[in-house]
């Protein structure tokens, strides 16, 4: 009797957790842990979306970011692009509904992955200022622009349209988002400016204009006029699928039997292989996918893992390329030497990926500090959690001492060096949903180290040459210092005049400078 009553009591407390509550409690997962990060995350999500949109439509991106301070802890952020625009009906869903997007179900190298980003910013804006988010989007010069002011219904996770109207916008196509939120504007390594600079480095085809809250305009010019090759979408590889995902895919599949489901919804599974997998798992290949039980699915997964299946195609990846990495670095970082390496594609857990690395040496880079590390995943800069990232670990595990840089055990090397690491993949494994650090898959670390070693070899030959040139200069100047000493001693020894001997020696040095330099080079080689 009493137990029933308890259940009723409990039932009174049990209710659906609203999306806003969930968001508030888990904001750290999404990159909104503090006001500093919230501001950066919002800029980041908006810019990522703009770049993805432009590239999909084959437009050279031109993005304008503007941040204005409206009160002590409030900022108005607007991000405008020249992308394809968004059709009217989709605008509310894209911006004011969490977990809505086109990217979540596809396996394609893209900046955003979960479709949570921009709507989370809209939610954050609403929670901290109560103000609606404004969207202007235009899809064709022949049509007017659509203007929206949006809220999110936090209970239903549905868009709430405040204003919806057409308007003129002197742009052929594009989208602009403007929202106001509570934040703190930060300069330095984890600030908006650094993020934009790194974005400009890794996207040399981007023309970016930034109006900062301090009323300065910074322009990041475009370095190349061609867009990156558009990455192809691929189906998942059987090795990369987990039980829950497999069950979901079977439920949603349009195939009429399990064998055709396997061969059409996965890459590298032929009809024959599909039949073989079913036989091994003891499932009739005629079974409708939705009728496959959980136990059978589990068995099937086990069989998949035990069967040798060729690696997924890797043409779905779009590297930046050595040349463009160099161009990007050169326009934003003033150094004396640059080198870049693009590794061939590889695979971790059925997901194709590739690693690129670049190094800059000398110039304006600080001589005494630890090296500066720029980390990127699918062309997006990663500014937080550097120490938790696979790229950091790979740099630490590379013996930079061999390449002429000093490095203490278990630490980053030091010197006037900048190291860039980029991972491109259809699915970049992050350590958390806020996408700040790349997970430590051995396959990924191995590729990173190979790329870094190659960069190391390139930079070390440069360092050797410059060090050599400097040493030569020092040696010559040493002769100049030795001459008065020798002259004095010779004068004592021979009773000849010191000044005469000194002048003679100086003349010989001047005359023989070229030969001396050659001599130094020779003695060096012998060692």
């Amino acid at each position, binding site marked *: 009797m009493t137990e029933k009553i308890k259940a009723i009591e409990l039932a009174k407390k049990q209710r659906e957790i609203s999306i806003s509550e969930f968001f508030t409690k888990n904001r750290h997962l999404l990159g909104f842990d503090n006001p500093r990060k919230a501001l950066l995350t919002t800029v980041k999500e908006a810019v990522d979306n703009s770049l993805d949109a432009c590239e999909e439509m084959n437009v050279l991106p031109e993005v304008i970011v503007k941040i204005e301070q409206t009160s002590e802890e409030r900022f108005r952020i607007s991000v405008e692009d020249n992308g394809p625009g968004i059709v009217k009906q989709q605008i509310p869903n894209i911006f004011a509904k969490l977990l809505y997007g086109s990217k979540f179900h596809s396996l394609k190298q893209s900046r955003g992955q979960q479709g949570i980003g921009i709507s989370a910013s809209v939610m954050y804006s609403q929670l901290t200022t109560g103000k609606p988010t404004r969207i202007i989007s235009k899809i064709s010069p022949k049509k007017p622009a659509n203007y929206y002011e949006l809220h999110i219904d936090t209970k239903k996770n549905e868009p709430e349209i405040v204003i919806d109207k057409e308007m003129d916008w002197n742009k052929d196509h594009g989208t602009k988002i403007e929202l106001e939120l509570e934040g703190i504007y930060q300069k330095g390594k984890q600030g908006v400016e650094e993020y934009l600079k790194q974005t400009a480095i890794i996207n040399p085809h981007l023309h970016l204009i930034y109006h900062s809250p301090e009323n300065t305009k910074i322009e990041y010019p475009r370095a190349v006029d061609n867009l990156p090759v558009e990455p192809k979408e691929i189906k998942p590889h059987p090795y990369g699928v987990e039980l829950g995902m497999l069950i979901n895919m079977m439920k949603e599949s349009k195939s009429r039997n399990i064998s055709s489901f396997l061969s059409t919804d996965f890459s590298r599974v032929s009809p024959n292989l599909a039949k073989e997998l079913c036989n091994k798992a003891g499932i009739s290949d005629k079974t409708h996918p939705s009728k496959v039980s959980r136990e059978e699915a589990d068995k099937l997964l086990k069989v998949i893992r035990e069967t040798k299946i060729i690696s997924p195609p890797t043409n779905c990846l779009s590297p930046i390329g050595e040349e463009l990495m160099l161009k990007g670095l050169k326009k934003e970082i003033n150094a004396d030497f640059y080198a870049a390496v693009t590794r061939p594609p590889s695979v971790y857990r059925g997901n194709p990926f590739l690693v690129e690395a670049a190094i800059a040496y000398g110039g304006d880079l600080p001589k005494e500090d630890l090296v500066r590390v720029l980390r990127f995943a699918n062309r997006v800069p990663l500014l937080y959690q550097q120490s938790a990232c696979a790229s950091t670990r790979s740099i630490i595990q590379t013996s930079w001492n061999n390449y002429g840089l000093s490095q203490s055990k278990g630490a980053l090397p030091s010197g006037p060096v900048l190291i860039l690491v980029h991972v491109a993949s259809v699915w970049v494994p992050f350590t958390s949903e806020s996408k700040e650090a790349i997970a430590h898959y051995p396959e990924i670390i191995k590729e990173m180290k190979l790329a870094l070693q190659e960069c190391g070899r390139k930079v070390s030959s440069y360092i050797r040459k410059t060090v050599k040139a400097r040493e030569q200069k020092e*040696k010559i100047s*040493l002769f100049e210092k*030795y001459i008065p000493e020798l002259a004095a*001693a010779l004068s004592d*020894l*021979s009773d000849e005049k010191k000044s005469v001997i000194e002048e003679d020696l100086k003349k010989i040095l001047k005359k023989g400078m070229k030969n*001396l330099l050659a001599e130094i080079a020779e003695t060096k080689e012998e060692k």
Partner: protein
Amino acid sequence: MPEEDSKNSLKKFGKKIVEQTKKGKNPEIKLPLRNLSNIIYDKKSRTLTLGNKEGTRNFFNVAHAKKFLQTIEVASLIKKELLNTGKHEHLRGVFYMTKRTIPGTNVNLVDEQVESDKAIEDLEVITGLSREQLHVSANKMGSMVGNIIIKDTGDTIDCSKLGRGGYSIPSITDELSFSKVNADYILYMEKAAIFERLNEDKFWKKNNCILVTSQGQTTRGIRRLLQRLYEEKKLPIYVMTDFDAWGFYIYSVIKYGSIALAHASEKLTIPGVKFLGITADDIEKYDLKKHLIKLNDQDIKRIKQVVDYDWFKDNKDWQRQLKMMKQMNAKAEIQALSSKGISFISEEYLPEKIKKKDFLD
């Protein structure tokens, strides 16, 4: 005045270099190489001499500049500070006279004494003057006792009345004179500890001999003294060292000369000395196996070097000794003889060996 000759030699050397600078030539010093590649073992005279290989040291050459400057500076210091004043200085003192930082650099003219020592050796080779003639002396490291009376700069020293320490042999022995010598032979030993043992046992009195020691390598002063006693007083010399490659080499230096001082062999070597022990055969005969020390890596490396020296190569006896040492994989100190009783060495080992003329040549 011998100092004048030395001064003139150094001045001549300086003038020669100044001539080169006047002609606009890169100043150079030519000197015979003083390494193994230029050491010739002359089988007839049984001494090590320098060959004809010459090295050239240029001032305007990064690898040579500092050494060049060292040589000239040491030469000028010797001329100015020692020869002009008639004073002598120790090798260590010359090092401190030379040691300074070259203005405007962080380079020290010399960092270690080896460098100034080498410069002095260079000057000996260049000018043909000995270190003594350059007024440079070395550490006194040796002692002598026995029935011998010496005159040293006006003092008369009776080496039979000097207690446990004996006569401390100076680093320059050219000017000593021997007033009275009453001995049948000289026993030279590597270890001062054995010297003290034998002196305490009055071995020299009982056996009518002279005992000489130095710590480790034999200094020039001792070598010159031994050579003079051998030549002027016709005293046979027996050498006693540890049973290891280093000990054998000490013997060979007294007998044939050394690589570093091959240019001065004439005044130092004593081809007639004999090796008394310890030999591999002694170890068998006197049952010293329990007191052997296992060879370490350096010992083995040294054996390999010594085996290949020309003055060991053709000597069957020495090749046999070194081969046996390698087979035993062990070395022995002279002190190992003490295991047979504290005075075993003075009462049995030495008298027996000398009586039987059980020597190696």
